[in-house]
């Protein structure tokens, strides 16, 4: 069974059709990429999946269960994690605390046990610290674990953003342009992390990215959006030969050059 099924999803802002009857499926354990020119509706798609937007019509099913109408925080506990395109970290907090917040739904302490601390809450903090340290090690962030995120350079913030999503130990991770604005060595690192989280932890990856080289190398499946419409869906080879996709991208080049 597909892990995430998006069916005929549409959403509109004023006169703009940000998503127009979009459908595709993610199989468990694959790397899926959603591509398209700027403003094509990629982030809006993620917002529909994580519950920040409510589509006007259509269905989004996670492991067969309809999630439209479900509150965002509930979707997180199903195992859907997300890294934002515009970094949305908690800037005053350390890397550690950001990652621990990524595990919020896995922890239990409430007002009483948190306040009394010694006992259940302390044990929980230590146990989850172990899990968080694994993410820190995986993303090679050992030397910045206590650093307030606000003081980190852009590239590292992007990495913490991904780390915070990973800390959930999600089934599906939604990565919105995790390499945007990075130099080529940072991009290589990030590509390696994505491959590793997919291979080592079996996480299904939903990737939004503009760099075609990276997309074609990493993806098992690709869907292409243009002005809110799905104009292609298939393997990298299929996408490269799709005339609509070629037209959309060449058309875009004509405009930009």
């Amino acid at each position, binding site marked *: 069974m597909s892990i995430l099924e998006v069916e005929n999803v549409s959403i509109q802002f004023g006169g703009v059709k940000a998503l127009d009857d979009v459908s595709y499926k993610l199989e468990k354990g694959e790397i899926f990429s959603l591509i398209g020119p700027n403003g094509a509706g990629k982030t809006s798609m993620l917002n529909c999946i994580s519950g920040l937007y409510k589509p006007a019509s259509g269905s989004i099913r996670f492991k067969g269960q309809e999630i439209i109408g479900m509150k965002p*925080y509930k979707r997180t*506990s199903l195992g859907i994690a997300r890294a934002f395109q515009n970094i949305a*970290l908690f800037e005053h907090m350390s890397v550690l605390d950001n990652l621990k*917040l990524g595990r919020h739904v896995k922890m239990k302490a409430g007002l009483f046990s*948190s306040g009394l601390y010694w006992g259940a809450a302390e044990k929980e*903090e230590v146990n989850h610290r172990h899990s968080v340290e694994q993410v820190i090690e995986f993303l090679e962030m050992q030397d910045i674990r206590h650093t307030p995120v606000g003081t980190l350079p852009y590239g590292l913030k992007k990495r913490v953003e991904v780390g915070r999503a990973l800390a959930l130990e999600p089934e599906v991770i939604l990565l919105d342009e995790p390499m945007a604005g990075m130099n080529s060595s940072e991009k290589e690192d990030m590509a390696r992390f994505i491959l590793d989280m997919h291979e080592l932890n079996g996480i299904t990856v939903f990737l939004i990215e503009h760099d075609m080289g990276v997309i074609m190398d990493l993806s098992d499946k690709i869907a292409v959006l243009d002005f809110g419409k799905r104009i292609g869906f298939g393997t990298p080879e299929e996408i490269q030969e799709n005339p609509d996709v070629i037209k959309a991208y060449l058309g875009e080049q004509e405009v930009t050059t």
Partner: protein
Amino acid sequence: MKNPFVMECGNYKTRYDKDMAIFSTKRVKVRMLTLTLLAFLFPLLADSYIIGLATLCAIASIGAIGLNILTGFTGQISIGVGAFLGVGGYTSAILTSTLGWSFWIALPVAGIVTASVGALFGIPSLRLKGLYLAIATLAAQFIILFVISRWTGVTGGTSGMVLQRPSIGSFSLMSASSYYYLCLMILLFTIVYSLNIFRSRTGRAFLAVRDRDVAAQIMGINLFTYKVLSFAISSFFVGVAGALLAHYTMIVSPELYSITVSIQYLAMILVGGLGSILGAVLGAIFITLLPVGLGMFVDQFAVYMPDMQNTLAAFQELAFGAAIILFLIFEPGGLAHIWSNIKNYFKLWPFSY
């Protein structure tokens, strides 16, 4: 023994629980214990006027910590603190004086009742932010005071109610120092509880709600639950402070809980430092003692200039306002920030440049 007031550089932790301790190093721990010990010992040397002031500081600190949990740490502004103090005070007054309950039960119940009222008035916070929420809490202030002053049968209306000091068995906490110790213990509990909250799951969620509510939701945080929880826990401490104050002054009446009180508490956390437990305590002490200090200053002058009495009294109010504004302009981080600057200075001393 090592001098606890000398700063430490470099520390290497070998276990996660050590890394997450309240006091980051042994020296900090010793320093805090020393300060606590001083707080316990000073009544032996001070007269009852000073001890009384210290009691007021301790009570204000409890309330200010409560307000800071809500406003400083969770980012939900409230200008209803005055009324919430009143809810605590009146609850305890009704329970002890009218119904004859023991103070020791009435105190936590006053906290719980205030927490419930706070949570109720916190419900609009899901939809309202910033200034709009401020106005909603202002409405809480007026509604609560209206109920208190009109519900004459229960609250005694504008003439208020009279309370007793608590007692343990046959020993009444009538003396200044015994009541001071009670307030100090509750303050210590409040401090430890709040420090714990903010190094574990619940407190992190509060901070996340304050800093980025959208990202907080994606972390799996239910905004509504945590905002209401924050209103509840914050109001609990404000309610306890209200009850302690009522049993200290031994009277409750509506005009003691006016909007001016709300603004004083906001001033405490602004001057002390938003989002800092230590700041709330320092701010509470500062705002409690500032008028006393200014009053003494003015009295000194009045001796030489008896005809200036009224002008000097006005000056006192003016100086109070000016002090707060100066703080906001020159040290927005508050007293807590000044304190950490001093610490950082001495960390490198004498090589700081």
